[in-house]
């Protein structure tokens, strides 16, 4: 006999567990099936443990600059084991909390892997053994994603590694080559560079952080290069020859080959969706480029089967997964939500400097046919940034010249990942430049630069 539910969520990541809790709030009888770890990649091997590592890197950076702030200290030691242990501790603590949250909301959790068995049924197995058969009129697939592998440069776990291994180093590699300059690659570059590794970043496209505004990408590159990171763009890794304690990597840059010998290679060239072993064969669920195709409410081609989060396509971000989970569940419960909010999903990179953005880049806005007004405000005009010793940064805002709609906002510098939310709210509430200009920002804060950037777009900047 199958266990019956109103809704079953496959995968307990930020997409799945949030969807399940929302469903429970809406009085649905709901189950989550999770094969490995509640909290998904985000809490166990993604967002959270990397932020813990980057916090250590930031402190290391401050320690390196103690004299700037009036201190001196001898014999500062880096204990990599403790840094990693702290990161794991944070991840475990938060992931453990998910179990409690689900329990509190009366969500039934099944430990095992789920596979569609047709007719609203799911088979759950663990280590090859059947655990349960479940049935529900609605099934949400939130199975997430895993690192993409490049043929010939496959992850071996020791010399060519993925984010999993990069998050738990036993010794600090003397040198590293990172393939890919998206958020994940750049965060590892920043972390290892701050701790003292020699870092090379190789990016196929012509700039790093390619989804960001070109101007911000440029500033990020300058900043990283100043910190000693070597950056190669329009560059492809041709081959990697493994030696005993090193890897010799051949990179083609602008038609010429360059050879680097490094201790390790981190492969951060994107992800592929976990669409295998889900029983999708024979259903009307459509998979394109390893991702499940969905509409604005997570519906797949198969009635009663939905997909959210990383497995349903970019942007591959935890808050996007959660948002999709909530919208999908509310639609299932007949709540008439608005479709997924694709334009209002902020993206953050927690490197040093931080990068954060929401909405369209200047180039995209122009391509979309908007006449734009662009505002810029550099941190050197901001009192708090100077006081903090963080004078590097820029806030750029893009408005539709006709309606005053904020089309996009792009930031680089200290604390910007915490600041971007102000603009996200502005966009969600559909404010125009007028409301932003009349908003009072506290002094002294870096957020004042957000105000000034808007003022600058309309020729009214004060401090620059």
């Amino acid at each position: 006999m199958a266990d019956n539910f109103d809704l079953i969520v496959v995968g307990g990541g930020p997409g799945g567990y949030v969807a399940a809790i929302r469903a429970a709030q809406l009085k649905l009888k709901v189950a989550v099936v999770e094969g490995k770890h509640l909290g998904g990649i985000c809490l166990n091997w993604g967002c959270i443990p990397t932020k813990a590592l980057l916090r250590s890197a930031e402190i290391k950076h401050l320690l390196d600059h103690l004299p700037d702030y009036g201190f001196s200290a001898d014999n500062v030691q880096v204990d990599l084991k403790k840094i990693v242990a702290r990161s794991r501790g944070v991840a475990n603590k938060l992931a453990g909390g998910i179990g409690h949250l689900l329990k509190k909301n009366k969500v039934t959790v099944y430990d095992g892997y789920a596979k569609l068995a047709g007719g609203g049924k799911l088979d759950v197995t663990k280590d090859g053994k059947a655990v349960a058969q479940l049935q529900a009129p609605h099934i949400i697939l939130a199975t997430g994603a895993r690192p993409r592998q490049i043929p010939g440069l496959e992850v071996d776990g020791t010399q060519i590694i993925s984010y999993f291994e990069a998050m738990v180093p036993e010794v600090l590699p003397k040198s590293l080559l990172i393939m890919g300059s998206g958020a994940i690659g750049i965060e590892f570059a920043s972390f290892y560079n701050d701790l003292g590794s020699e870092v090379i970043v190789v990016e196929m496209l012509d700039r790093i952080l390619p989804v960001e505004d070109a101007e911000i990408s440029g500033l990020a590159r300058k900043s990283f290069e100043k910190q000693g990171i070597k950056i190669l763009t329009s560059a492809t890794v041709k081959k990697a020859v493994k030696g005993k304690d090193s890897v010799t990597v051949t990179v083609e840059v602008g038609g010429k080959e360059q050879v680097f010998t490094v201790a390790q290679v981190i492969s951060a060239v994107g992800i592929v969706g976990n669409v295998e072993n889900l029983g999708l064969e024979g259903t009307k669920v459509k998979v394109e480029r390893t991702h499940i195709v969905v509409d604005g409410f997570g519906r797949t081609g198969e009635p009663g089967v939905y997909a959210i989060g990383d497995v349903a396509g970019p942007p591959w971000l935890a808050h996007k997964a959660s948002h999709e989970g909530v919208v999908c569940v509310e639609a299932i419960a007949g709540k008439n939500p608005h479709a997924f909010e694709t334009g209002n999903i902020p993206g953050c990179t927690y490197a040093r400097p931080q990068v954060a953005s929401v909405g369209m880049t200047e180039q995209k806005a122009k391509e979309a046919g908007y006449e734009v007004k662009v505002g810029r405000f550099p941190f050197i005009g901001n009192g708090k940034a100077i006081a903090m010793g963080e004078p590097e940064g820029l806030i750029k805002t893009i408005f539709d010249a006709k309606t005053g709609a904020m089309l996009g906002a792009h930031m680089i510098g200290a604390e910007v990942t915490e600041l971007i939310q102000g603009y996200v709210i502005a966009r969600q509430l559909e404010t125009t430049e007028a409301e932003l200009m009349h908003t009072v920002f506290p002094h002294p804060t870096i957020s004042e630069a957000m105000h000034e950037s808007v003022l600058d777009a309309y020729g009214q900047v004060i401090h620059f």
Partner: protein
Amino acid sequence: MSINILMPALSPTMTEGKLSRWLKKEGDEVKSGDVLAEIETDKATMEVEAVEEGFLAKIVVPDGTEGVAVNAVIGVLTEEKGGAVDAAPVAEKPAPAPKAETAPKAAAPEASGGGEIPTPFKEPTSAKTEEHGERIFASPLARRIAKQSGIDLATVKGSGPNGRIVKADLDEAPAHEAPKEEPKAEAPKAAAPATPKAAGPAIAAPHKKIPNSSMRKVIAKRLLESKQTVPHFYLTVNVELDALLELRAKLNATSPKDGPGAFKLSVNDLIIKACGVALRRHPNVNASWTDEAIIQYDDVDISIAVAIPDGLITPIVRKADALGLAAISNTMKDLGARAKAGKLKPDEYQGGGFSISNLGMFGIAEFSAIINPPQAAILAVGAGEKRAVVKNDQLAIATVMSATLSCDHRVVDGALGAQFLATLKGLLEDPLGLML
């Protein structure tokens, strides 16, 4: 110090009006209580009285200006003769205050930079009011786009939280804002797209343009909304009037010739009374739909459609079930006369739980009327005319009137409407019951 005189809201539904004429000139001394100007609202002409004393320093909105937004600055008073007028008066966001009063001076800077200050009356609507006098919730961007493209937000259905109007409600066309990453399967819209801007085809035939009066706009908006959003259905009965006409003649003969007790009952007065009694017996027709509940009114207040020079208005006979026939008749005469003169007070035409529209005097045999929201029914009354009827299997002549009830099916089902009409027919055909 100068004091702004604001366009008053003479009724809760008023969002804009016409400033017909000023009764004071620039420089005139003004005492509290003086009539400053006349304003034509959607339904009536009203006088604007001064609340403050001083001198009318400046007339901002000249005579005959249409579409002046409520709370726009129409003039400026100064305390002293020739006193300085403070910096350009600008429209404040409509405050709830329904009276012409001192407004806090507020600069409403248009953020477009460049220091231009909008004239108060040409760029109104920073927050419009809805039909029921409520604020319209709309995002700032939606407001701006609506203003730029001439969309009346009151006609737009909001799909945001609690019905808030957002940008997507204004453009049916999918937002051209591309997602940050690669495209996904097209997202079906969650909510029905809102009323698009009706851009009629350009009219080429020789013509003249009659600008829409405030009343015309309100009629257009309310009746369109009613016909589009209220599920109407119609029930018609034929009523023999001979007994009623006989009674009416007898009663009228008893009226004193002149003086306070005089009356002259019309057929319509008897119909009003009959409807009043029938509504008291069928209170579920004297009702309104809301999403949460059906509202049943305690009083039987009947709106009577009255044709006036450039439209119509519906003054209300209150507690029609309890009033005597002479009282109904005299009330109706007074309301009708003042309606035609444009002198009704808002509370004399706002409200009511049921309407009657009578086109019998124009010889109309029968018609169906559009419900007057938020009411749930309206009775359309045709002419009483001699018709051949069959009585005891014999052809006979009777004075017959057709009456059609338009019902809001959300409130009044077919059987209920039919029972109400049966009661009404009984009262009209055997009118002695009305005397009780």
